[in-house]
């Protein structure tokens, strides 16, 4: 079986498995218990937290362990109270659905957020008329040259706008210019959250460098185990918990910590460099695959004009529905996906592709290939052959 669906989940790395099993065999471990076995559990969690802080440039930040990347995203966008929330149209559903009444930012055809549009939305949340009307030299400024002042509707908070834009898209791999976006948002006094769930393990992710205030990650997307994620928050950001109780995780996420999975999370983070070292190799493989596919027929690769994750490719097979493709590939022993895993059971066309202006009939012929650190050129060649065979057969049928 050939696994080309690494954005859905990844195989657990051997080192992670070892860390998880060690913690499990070490059980019972309730980190809140004051006796020795409780303290051992606490140490496992503290170590994982320290590694995450180090690797993701999050020294001094708060790291809240959650049950998933979805929960981390929910916590970030629904945990802020009294904020105007702005999200992009191609966000993961865990951001889109959790951010109720959010303003939705359109994206360009290549999947990138339209910065001019973001500026316009930010402007509409603020008023320049109320800003300081004098320049440093004491001259009277025209309204459009004044610094922004918070809209009176939104006053009463230190910052009043939360922008949530993903670092990399799960379906197309398109990478947003988060650093630039963060600077823009901050210039308006807003705060920014980025869903980095798909980016980790494929490109380097550094919270300080990105300049974001909150960042979500999930362990099982880069060799960790399922059942644990984290929201990393700059100190000073205030959010309300969704799950309350025993006061764990700075009272932002109650519940006995998933010690074994967190131990594995720490190990996955520790071994992250292995993934990054292979990124270039994976990118060459991905580009090779796309070239070969396009030499067969004019398949469309989505987000091609933008910076993309090195492992992800979302492209069409003209005239052949995604469902037909995934079944055929599965019969041929190849695991691919027709979109994000969480919605892949549903027949609806991808909201990501629709937001990029792709017409529904074309969107319905797309599949996603997401390579992992263990895929080989031999596998890709086999995939291309199966793809070619499927395309030819389907089109002969269509022609007949």
């Amino acid at each position, binding site marked *: *079986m050939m*696994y080309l*669906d690494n954005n*859905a*989940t990844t*195989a*657990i790395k051997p080192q992670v*498995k070892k860390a998880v*099993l060690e913690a*499990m065999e070490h*059980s*019972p471990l*309730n980190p*809140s*218990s*004051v*006796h*020795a*076995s*409780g303290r051992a559990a606490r140490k496992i969690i503290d170590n994982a937290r320290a590694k995450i802080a180090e690797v993701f440039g999050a020294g001094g930040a708060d790291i809240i362990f*959650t*049950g*998933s990347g*979805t929960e981390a995203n*929910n916590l970030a966008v629904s945990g802020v109270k009294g904020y105007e929330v702005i999200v992009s149209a191609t966000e*993961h*559903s*865990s*951001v889109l*659905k*959790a951010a109720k009444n959010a303003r939705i930012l359109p994206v360009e055809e290549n999947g990138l957020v339209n910065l001019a549009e973001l500026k316009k939305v930010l402007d509409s949340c603020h008023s320049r008329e109320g800003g300081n009307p004098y320049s440093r030299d004491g001259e009277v400024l025209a309204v459009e040259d004044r610094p922004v002042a918070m809209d009176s509707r939104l006053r009463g908070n230190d910052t009043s706008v939360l922008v949530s834009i993903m670092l990399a898209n799960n379906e197309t791999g398109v990478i947003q210019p988060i650093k630039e976006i963060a600077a823009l948002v901050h210039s308006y006094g807003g705060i920014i959250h980025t869903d980095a769930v798909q980016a980790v393990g494929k490109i380097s992710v550094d919270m300080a460098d990105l300049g974001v205030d909150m960042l979500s990650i*999930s362990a*099982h997307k880069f060799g960790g*185990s*399922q*059942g*644990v994620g984290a929201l990393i928050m700059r100190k000073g950001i205030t959010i309300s918990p*969704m*799950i*309350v*109780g*025993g*006061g*764990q995780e700075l009272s932002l996420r*109650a*519940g*006995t910590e*998933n*010690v*074994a*999975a967190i131990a594995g999370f720490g190990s996955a983070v520790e071994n992250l460099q292995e993934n990054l070292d292979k990124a270039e190799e994976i990118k060459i493989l991905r580009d090779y695959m796309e070239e070969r596919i396009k030499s067969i027929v004019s398949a469309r690769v989505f987000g091609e004009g933008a910076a993309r994750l090195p492992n992800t490719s979302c492209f069409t097979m003209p005239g052949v529905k995604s469902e037909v493709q*995934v*079944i055929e590939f*599965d019969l041929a022993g*190849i*695991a691919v*996906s027709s979109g994000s895993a*969480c919605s*892949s*059971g549903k027949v609806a066309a991808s909201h990501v592709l629709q937001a990029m202006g792709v017409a529904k009939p074309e969107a319905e012929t797309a599949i996603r290939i997401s390579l992992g650190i263990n895929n080989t050129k031999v596998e890709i060649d086999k995939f291309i052959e199966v793809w070619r065979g499927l395309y030819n057969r389907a089109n002969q049928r269509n022609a007949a």
Partner: protein
Amino acid sequence: MKPNIKLPIYLDYQATTPMDPRVLEVMIPYFTEKFGNPHSRSHSYGWEAEAAVEKARKQVADLIGASEKEIIFTSGATESNNMALKGIAHFYKDKKDHIITVVTEHKCVLDACRHLEQEGFKLTYLPVGKNGLIDLQDLKNAITDRTAIVSIMAINNEIGVIQDLKEIGKITRERGVFFHTDAAQGFGKIPLNVEEMNIDLMSISGHKIYGPKGIGALYVRRRPRVRLEPLINGGGQERGMRSGTLPTPLIVGFGEAAAIAQKEMPEEYARVKRLSDKFYNAVAREIPDVFLNGDETQRYPGNLNLSFAYIEGESMIMAIKDLAVSSGSACTSASLEPSYVLRSLGVEEEMAHTSIRFGIGRFTTEAEIDYAIEVIRSNIEKLRQMSPLWEMVQEGVDLKSIEWAAH
């Protein structure tokens, strides 16, 4: 006496339990070769993981007489409790705005209720008697036509008493009010049946039944249908009620733990009861002035919360450090506040400070119990000899008659 046993002896089975090796064994393949995302519908990796999840769902459902369609996997009982209370309150808020719970509930239930109170919901916190049980008449009186949900735990985590779920369920069903029970401590330990007990929502946890941490479930009744607003939104997993990738290996372990609990419940209960009786008889009956907190009969034997009169609580914990025990629930045990559960029972503060919870479970051995009894017996005597209070009592002074100077 130096026993041939590993120290410290783990007697904190309410905080968490060691994983059963049989559980770990079935989980391992799902960490490696069977690693698929159970929501991937386009290939066999996903289907294989999904099949494993569905098998576990059935194992969990079977243990409480539910259908597998009624089990929503969560990250643990804390999330389940939050989801049940907030989910019901928010979904039905237009017609109902009243919630009933009990003062001795787990902290996460009480915290969720406080949050709802801040949002404008009305709360009734039922009192408990000296035995830790509610008066059913209080419950009947508290229900109004604005009541959305009654939340009453099965087994109390600190003192082990069992509320009369069957009678409570009868009342709530008759009055058309949803009944939620936090069964984190009861699931897999005592027979629970959602049909016989008319339970509409039930919170359960994996790591309290020798399964993994990070996994739990909320039972949500389908007939008549209970609806709730989700706590976590996104990909629409778990029938839209709880989004997020399901952790397949943890779920497989949870299912196996439930299956083992179901199969072995009668023998395990008998074994725990025998050890518990032995411990109780030796400690509470033979040593003077040791009191059991909570009802003597309506209780789970694996949880014995004892107060040792005339002893400093902290010195007690230090003295018996060969026993990994707790003076309350784990989540609050770092604070030295006396337990709110014991205070609700009317236990005096002095006594609440000297109470210790002894948890007995699947892997507790007779030799461990014998050793624990010996440790307690010898230390109590030592500590009491150092206690001025004990001396006064021995001299016949009624401590209640003394007026203590404030300090």
